[in-house]
């Protein structure tokens, strides 16, 4: 190699240094430029919003001027104009709407929470197709307006949301529904500078046709909405009288018709019936196209909040809808964070990112029971509130197996479960013992029924009576069934979501072992578990049912459901007496009569013990001090922030 002269070396190094300095300056300048650009962007966005508002007000003023009615507020005018078809009938929507936030509540702030407390991405936001409770309780709750909603104080009555008046005939077969006028659809979330979306640029109002469209979609056999179709199949007809009035006729008088009708919501036909270029879908395949509609990964509605952003795996964002017709919620924006790991959730709550957190059993023990007294959890900085969820946990026995056919055996199995201690130790008190299928804090639940207590000697006696005796001295009970000597051995399917369930199942296993019963734990993956329950290929399993307010036992307990492969009556429960009650409940509207029937039903399932009923679960919700006016709803969803507000 030739030796370079010193001078070239020096020149080269100087040039190198100069290059580096030059690059550095360039980067800094570009950075500055970018800063300014971002500022401009933010400013232009806020100007755009203000312009929009101004435009709206101008439009309103224009309308008033045109109609020539000064002095009268437009709302009052509408009310006086509207005519009811059956003015003699009492408005069905008599419930109290939720109390609005105090007037001096600051109207601002971003509410941050984990999406559905589990932090898993939803499948999509097409409300007709998606059947997950996460979408309906988190997103749809804020985005759509239902015809009527359950009153927070008394969930048995409804208040008007989209509907302003509903008239029901005495036989509960015909509902005449008047929906509010002037409810605007949210603007779809699209790139408006793209000429492709010019066709959808207009402003749209919610009409009765949109409500009927939802019904039509659910009943369209091409649409993947068969989970809701069961509910609406008893509707005889949905007729639109004019833009804001529709009549729904039911084929028969059923109690469920009330909640089903109230649960109807509008779906924008002007969006979902068209492809991205604004051409209507061909009629023959419209349902199939709807299933994969181009707007399905975004959500649209007419409610208090509108959908802003879904950053998959990171964030779902809602922003307050300034055109909302109901009481304006103070919180301006809701951020749902997709955080799966429970520790991440906790740390993000502690760091102040999240405003609300749900303490699972282990964290509850760490932070509240064993935590130091000066921790923010215990010194009053964070507000801690247990909320009883409308969920119960149970063990289901396969009633078609000979060993579980005998009522006495099932009672003996319940006697062997120390439920009080499980709640105290495994759950750290985060549960309420139940003896039947109803929510503990509802009128349907019969408090006078004494739970089967934990008593192994009683189990032993009942098992003796049922013929289960250890004849060969191998420590395991046996019995001759159909001429074959059978040992009392069975498996229990468990799946992974909740740690505490595994721990109480293993304690139960020990207790059964003392009685001479062998229970094998079979941890199973969820999708395999579902398949095995469809085929009824299990001995027993642990499960959890979420309850709705009606507490209709039909799907889980009616014997007609026991033969269907995809039904919720997985254990094959058949009881004539219970069937009569269930059928009668579906036609009874009188509250006291209903309670009587429900309690009679409760008594049967307590006596029969088709499930080993465990507990209603409690949720420990901790909230940041900046969150005010926090209260939890009795019915689901328990967390509803419409009248909460944020203080800095």
């Amino acid at each position, binding site marked *: 190699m030739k030796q370079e002269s010193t001078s070239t070396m020096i020149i080269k190094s100087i040039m190198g240094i100069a290059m580096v300095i030059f690059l550095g300056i360039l980067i800094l300048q570009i950075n500055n430029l970018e800063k300014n650009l971002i500022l401009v962007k933010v400013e232009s966005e806020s100007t755009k919003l203000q312009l929009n508002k101004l435009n709206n007000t101008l439009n309103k003023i224009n309308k008033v001027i045109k109609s020539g009615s000064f002095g009268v507020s437009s709302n009052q005018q509408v009310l006086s104009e509207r005519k009811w078809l059956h003015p003699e009938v009492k408005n069905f929507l008599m419930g109290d709407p939720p109390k609005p936030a105090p007037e001096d509540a600051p109207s601002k702030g971003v509410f941050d929470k984990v999406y559905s407390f589990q932090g898993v991405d939803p499948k999509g936001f097409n409300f007709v197709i998606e059947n997950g409770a996460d979408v309906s309780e988190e997103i749809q709750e804020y985005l759509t307006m239902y015809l009527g909603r359950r009153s927070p104080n008394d969930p048995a009555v409804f208040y008007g949301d989209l509907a302003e008046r509903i008239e029901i005939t005495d036989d509960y077969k015909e509902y005449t529904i008047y929906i509010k006028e002037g409810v605007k659809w949210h603007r779809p979330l699209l790139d408006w500078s793209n000429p492709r979306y010019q066709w959808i640029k207009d402003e749209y109002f919610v009409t009765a046709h949109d409500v009927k469209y939802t019904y039509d979609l659910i009943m369209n056999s091409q649409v993947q909405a*068969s989970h809701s179709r069961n509910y609406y199949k008893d509707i005889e007809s949905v007729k639109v009288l004019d833009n804001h009035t529709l009549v729904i006729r039911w084929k028969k008088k059923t109690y469920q018709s009330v909640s089903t009708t109230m649960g109807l919501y509008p779906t924008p036909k002007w969006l979902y019936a068209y492809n991205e270029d604004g051409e209507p879908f061909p009629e023959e395949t419209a349902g199939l196209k709807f299933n994969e509609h181009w707007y399905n990964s975004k959500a649209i509605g007419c409610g208090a909040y509108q959908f802003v952003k879904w950053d998959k795996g990171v964030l779902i964002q809602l922003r307050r809808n300034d055109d909302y017709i109901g009481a304006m919620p103070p919180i301006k924006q809701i951020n749902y964070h997709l955080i799966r790991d429970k520790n991440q959730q906790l*740390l993000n709550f502690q760091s102040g990112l999240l405003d609300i957190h749900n303490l699972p059993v282990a964290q509850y023990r760490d932070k509240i029971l064993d935590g130091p007294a000066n921790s923010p959890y215990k010194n009053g900085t964070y507000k801690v509130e247990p909320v009883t969820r409308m969920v119960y946990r149970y063990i289901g026995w396969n009633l078609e197996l000979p060993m579980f056919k005998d009522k006495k055996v099932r009672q003996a199995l319940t006697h062997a479960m120390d439920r009080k201690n499980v709640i105290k130790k495994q759950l750290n008190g985060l549960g309420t013992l139940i003896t039947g299928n109803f929510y503990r804090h509802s009128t349907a639940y019969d408090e006078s029924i004494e739970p089967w207590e934990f008593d192994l000697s009683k189990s032993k006696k009942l098992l003796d009576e049922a013929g289960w005796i250890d004849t060969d001295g191998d420590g395991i009970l046996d019995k001759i069934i159909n001429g074959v000597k059978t040992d009392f051995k069975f498996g229990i399917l468990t799946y992974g979501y909740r740690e505490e369930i595994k721990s109480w199942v293993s304690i139960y296993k020990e207790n059964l072992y003392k009685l001479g019963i062998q229970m094998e734990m079979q941890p199973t993956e969820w999708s*395999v578990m579902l398949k095995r329950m469809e085929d009824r290929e299990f001995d027993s399993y642990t499960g959890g*049912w979420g309850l709705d307010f009606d507490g209709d036992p039909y799907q889980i307990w009616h014997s007609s459901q026991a033969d269907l492969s995809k039904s919720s009556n997985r254990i094959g429960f058949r009881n004539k007496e219970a069937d009569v009650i269930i059928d009668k409940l579906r036609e009874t509207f009188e509250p006291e009569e209903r309670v009587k029937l429900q309690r009679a039903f409760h008594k049967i399932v307590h006596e029969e013990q088709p499930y080993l009923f465990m507990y209603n679960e409690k949720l420990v919700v901790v909230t940041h001090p900046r969150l005010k006016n926090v209260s939890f709803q009795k019915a689901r969803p328990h967390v509803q922030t419409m009248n909460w507000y944020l203080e800095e």
Partner: protein
Amino acid sequence: MQQYIIKRILMMIPTLFAITVIVFGILQMAPGKPGGGLETDSESANKQEGMAGHLIFKRQFHLDKPVFFNFRFWLNDDDIIQLLDEKYDKTKKYTRAQKNVATETIEDYGNDILPNFHRILERSDDKELKIRILSSFSANAARTLIHRFGEKLSEEERFINRETERENRRVAKFSYSPTMSSAEFDKLNFQVIDYLRSIEDRWNYSLLQKMYKCFFDTRFSYYFYNLLHFDFGISMVDKQPVLPKIMEKVGYSILLSVGSIILAYLLAVPIGIYSAVNPKTLLDKAITVGLFMLYSLPTFFVGTVLLFYFSEGSEYYKWFPTGGFKSIDSDNMTSLQQLKDISIHMILPLVCLTYVSLASISRYARTGLLDVIHSDYIKTARAKGLGEWVVVFKHAVRNGLIPILTLLGSVLPAVVSGSVVIEVIFNIPGIGLESFNAVITRDYNMVMGIQLISAVLTLLGLLVSDILYSIVDPRIQYE
């Protein structure tokens, strides 16, 4: 060399085909339902999926077709009678699983079962059997409409669809109900036979048509046909195209794993060299023990500990962000700020990903170098009077580190597969978590997509490491 590379690339095509077939076959054998949800915390009794919805779903993804070969033009009447017997079994002669399988099978056969129905209806006089056929008939006779994801249909196809729809509407009326009088039943029977006669020649397949149906009317061929167009299909869970979804997620994982690989090599190779140059000293032993202790610490534990001590949510040192890939308000940051934001988010995950691989890489480097350092040419170099540094770095390292290159080749597929544990603990929306979820929910298309991409990368990785060999060591030559 060029020839060799071309040959290798051409060889990839049959290999990839074989991989596709095998992965596809294994996936179809997995128990559980495709496209289900992630496990839930509690279920709602009233929101169960009905049968009809499942059928639309199956047709959408061709799950009603056989996997590799379709011999449905040879369905046997006796088998069909047996299946019907199982489906409508009331005496509990068959288990519920058998009954469900029979129901699904009949449903899946769709139109293909109609010739058998026709023959049985014409010949048999078993009324019970006829009732069974008529009860299944309208569901089986319904024909599938032409429908492709996100595509517009041609006028011709729309015309066919309209005709099909009209026929389907007619067929839907042929339904049996138990309340029928025997005259009504006979009328229905007659109508159905009449209809079947009118469409009889649809099933007179020629040999060529049979061959076509056998190989191309199957799940695999539909999938493969799309694959040839670089179309990985749509996700069975959220009905969105798979490829963009993978690309979106893979970025996060690539950044993480490339970062950790670079970091690991930067740290481990010098450690390995040091250990090789000073073998069996106290420090060498201490390093070995220390690295293996790190190696045996599980990442989920270390990750959680790091978070509980060094993240913003901790009660101790609030140095690093709690998790995630970037801050929420990063949209309004300049590029430099974003760079800083992402880097600071990446520190803890990178530490977790890196410390595990330090042990293996540094050991590889150490042994590789030790082998070389005792060889004759190193002795010669030393004898020549070269300094120790020159001997080690110029002569030994170049040869001694060849084994490490092998590692680099095998690392490439890991780059896209991501790490489920790290992604969950640090809440990074990467491909690891996505593929894990896809397996759990039996999202066949998603799993296939991820597997195929990583298969391609594995093959490429092997090729690259082979080429690197010959660059580093001129003695290795490929013919």
